[in-house]
């Protein structure tokens, strides 16, 4: 039976849903519209040009793209194994009563505002990193990864702080994914005489698609992280392999220079960087959700819902 009131309800609430959809579309369109000048002038060379000189009107985004990717990949190299360890520990090895506490503590890492991480980064982490860098043996300092003066501000500090900020996201998704692996999987392994490591690695292998998705989700987070990175990376638009060198990221250059942009071309170039960042996170996030979804969905349907209440909240 169709009632007009019901149609009105559907259209009414659907309208707000439409607002959400249009908002996402509007972000893409607006960023593109506002950066036309830069897109027309520089075309694809924008991505490859290494010179960023606002005074001379030369704009190349390469140092920022480099810095964003380099810092995010370094952060994930640190964060991915730790996050997986946390996910395994909480979902497989912790007694049920301790679980909510650990979950809460790791979620707290995600709740601390970026600006607070940044403040801590400037006054605590950067001096510590500087001390570490100055104590590096001379033989290491000769390699391209550790060249340049040890000033503390730079790629290493940024990667470390990003890693801390990414861990809660990756570990909580990895935990969800592990939860979607049927219990019978592990029980089967144990029945065959497997050790904990063997049973859990079977579960991890079973969940591999979702785990990759969880790591990519962390990558998406790292790409867009702004304040903390801006405050510790040193903000120098020069791409380098060195972990000690001050560098720059796409998000950081926006935070730093946007309100100073005095010409339309300068502003357009910055907005184009925003557009590139938007598209990159969009692709990475969609891909990661697809992986997580393909992993968690069919299994949730198949597995009986006997998850204890406390766990479903976590």
């Amino acid at each position, binding site marked *: 039976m169709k*009632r007009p009131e*019901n149609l009105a*309800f*559907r259209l*009414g*609430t*659907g309208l707000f*849903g439409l*607002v*959400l*959809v249009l*908002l*996402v579309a509007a*972000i893409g369109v*607006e*960023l593109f*519209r506002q950066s036309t000048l830069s897109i027309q002038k520089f075309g694809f060379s924008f991505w490859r040009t290494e010179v960023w000189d606002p005074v001379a009107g030369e704009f190349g985004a390469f140092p920022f793209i480099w810095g964003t990717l380099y810092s995010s990949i370094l952060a994930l190299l640190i964060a991915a194994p*730790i*996050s997986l360890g*946390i996910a395994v*520990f909480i979902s497989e*090895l912790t007694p049920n009563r301790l679980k909510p506490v650990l979950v*809460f503590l790791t979620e*707290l*890492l995600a*709740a*601390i*505002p*970026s*600006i*607070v*991480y*940044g*403040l*801590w980064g400037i*006054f605590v982490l950067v001096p510590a990193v500087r001390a570490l860098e100055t104590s590096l043996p001379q033989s290491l300092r000769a390699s391209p990864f550790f060249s340049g003066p040890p000033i503390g501000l730079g790629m290493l500090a940024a990667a470390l702080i990003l890693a*801390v900020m990414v*861990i809660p996201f990756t570990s909580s998704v990895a935990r969800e994914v592990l939860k979607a692996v049927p219990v019978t999987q592990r029980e089967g392994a144990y029945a065959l005489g497997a*050790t*904990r*490591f063997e049973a*859990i690695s079977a579960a991890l292998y079973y969940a591999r698609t979702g785990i990759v998705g969880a790591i990519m989700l962390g990558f998406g987070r790292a*790409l*867009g*992280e*702004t304040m903390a990175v801006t*405050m510790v990376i040193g903000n120098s638009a020069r791409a380098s392999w060195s972990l000690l060198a001050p560098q720059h990221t796409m*998000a950081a250059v*926006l*935070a730093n220079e*946007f*309100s100073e942009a005095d010409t339309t071309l300068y502003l357009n170039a910055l*907005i184009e960087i*925003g557009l590139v*960042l938007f598209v990159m*996170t969009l692709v990475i*996030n969609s891909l990661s959700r697809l992986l997580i979804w393909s992993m968690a969905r069919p299994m949730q349907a198949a597995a009986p819902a006997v998850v204890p*209440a406390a766990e*479903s*909240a976590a």
Partner: protein
Amino acid sequence: MTWGTRRRKFVSSLFVGSCAASVLLALVPLAFVLFFVVSQGVQSLNVAFFTHMPAPPGESGGGMANAIAGSLILVGIGALFAVPVGIFSGIYMSEYAGTRFAALVRFAADTLNGVPSIVIGVFVYGIAVLPFKQFSAIAGGLALGIMMIPIIARTTEELLLLVPGTMREGALALGATHARAVFTVVVPSALPGIITGLVLALARIAGETAPLLFTSLNNRFFSTTLTKPMASLTVQVYTYAQSPYQDWHRQAWAGALVLVFIVLTCSLLARFATRKLETLSSN
């Protein structure tokens, strides 16, 4: 025990040990951040911080009264935009969960949630600052609101889906329209959870800096004019942290402590509220 078994057991305990170690590795920075924020913040947090205006550079004393008021106003404006859109689109996603449009809305919400906050700032600059040639509190609030929408929408959806279908069906069987069933039966029973989600979203958004940098900008003075730049706690902390003055650094730590306190209490409250909810629903 054969050598092979012993090796397998050793590898296994090594694995368990490294998992435990990774939990510790994550908790160490948490403890460090909290320790420094509390120990540094407490030293400079006093009544003046909440009641006084910022002191001129180099002079000691002063507070962040204008920034605290500004943050409250900005988050309020954001909530004004975000709560209706978030709640109603959440209702749509849960009530028409199987439909293709609901899937599209869900995709949009997840996408929006993943958009870097600085990019939202750039977007709002384009639509709300550039056309009027004026940084404004409204623009800042709009940016915060856009960030809140997906959080509220997804929380609402998830909580409504937890309400047993029989309750909705009961209302419909009594002849209620769909809207009536949703607004008088389904939503009220999920309301405590939805409100918890709202509080959590507000707390998270209050800690955002990047979307405010070039929308509401900053303001050295106390202002409640929505069409003018407005100070906020987060941007103020950022400005002070970058400054060369010792006294401003102390103020920045105090600001950070206030921010962490807000987020921490809200998370704890939410934690207890959801636990209560679960015991209710499981009985």
